[in-house]
């Protein structure tokens, strides 16, 4: 697969799979207002995934005489074809886990899109320009909640700390680089993940401090999602996401 295609699908899958997890949480948030907030986040992420998948279709070029569209990438690939980092597919659990997963992701996604506005790839730069504004809001929302849960009651503090401890092992993969990144960093299509990691670490440390939560040590990091190796619960997520499209091919409103 062309490095640019792999790269674009990784970003599209990151957005889509996180959106799918958020959508599972609807009607389970503490109040209907928070259901709205989480679904708005999900809709923004789906919009980002659509733009990235459309671009992936252009990069891939015609297959059997037709250009693949966004629906192809979302509904007609098998689970090992999805290249999202493991972080975004982690099950919802309680509200603290939803918020912590979102925060750890948003603290990555916001500086990521901010720097991608300067990509030499014009399409990715344009997608970044739109996504950075949306993601700034996502980060504000998830960070606000992180601080309130961490610095809230004993119970909310305990749950938030437990979510941070559980999810920490998936943070390393967000900044992983292989040949795909190395190639694209060389042409300034993408940017050095190590620099992004430093930015992320700084803002996460600040927020955890405000939330009176402990920042875990970096232990062994779980990786593999970006190469198509997913956790057990992923097949259920994909099954639910794809069942309608596969049961009724070509269905429309």
């Amino acid at each position, binding site marked *: 697969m062309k490095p640019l295609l792999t790269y674009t699908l990784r970003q599209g899958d990151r957005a889509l799979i996180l959106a799918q997890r958020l959508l599972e949480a609807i009607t*389970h*948030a503490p*109040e*209907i*207002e928070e259901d709205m*907030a989480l679904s708005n986040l999900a809709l923004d992420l789906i919009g980002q995934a659509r733009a990235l998948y459309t671009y992936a279709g252009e990069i891939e070029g015609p297959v059997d005489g037709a250009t693949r569209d966004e629906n192809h990438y979302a509904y007609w690939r098998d689970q090992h074809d999805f290249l999202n980092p493991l972080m975004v597919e982690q099950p919802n659990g309680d*509200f603290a886990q939803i918020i912590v997963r979102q925060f750890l992701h948003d603290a990555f996604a916001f500086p990521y899109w901010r720097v991608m506005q300067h990509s030499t790839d014009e399409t990715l730069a344009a997608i970044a320009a739109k996504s950075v504004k949306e993601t700034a809001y996502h980060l504000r929302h998830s960070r606000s*909640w992180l601080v309130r849960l961490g610095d809230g009651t004993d119970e909310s503090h305990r749950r938030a700390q437990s979510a941070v401890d559980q999810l920490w092992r998936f943070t390393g993969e967000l900044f992983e680089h292989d040949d795909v990144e190395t190639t694209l960093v060389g042409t300034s299509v993408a940017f050095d993940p190590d620099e992004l990691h430093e930015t992320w670490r700084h803002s996460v440390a600040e927020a955890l401090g405000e939330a009176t939560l402990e920042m875990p040590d970096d232990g062994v990091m779980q990786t593999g999602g970006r190469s198509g190796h997913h956790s057990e619960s992923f097949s259920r997520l994909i099954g639910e996401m794809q069942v309608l499209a596969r049961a009724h091919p070509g269905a429309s409103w």
Partner: protein
Amino acid sequence: MSSKADWPLWEVFVRAKRGVSHVHAGTVHAPDAELALQNARDLFTRRSEGVSLWVVKSNDITASDPDDSEALFEPAGDKSFRHPTDFELPDEVANM
């Protein structure tokens, strides 16, 4: 996660564009002012309805008593000289 949160109610005011007043749009539940603003943004401005938002705790609003409406409002009814009805509004004046 399923238990109903005990969050206060906030009144939301939206300014549609520069130069016009904030108008009451509805209410949201939120644990504090900052999240009330975020919830208001998600509920009342997601289709580009506004350029500015205010939130005020519903409990902080002092409202007139409906039983007082005769005393408060009816005396104005027969004082037509208080209404600028004899002025013609130029077409150029918008937002009145």
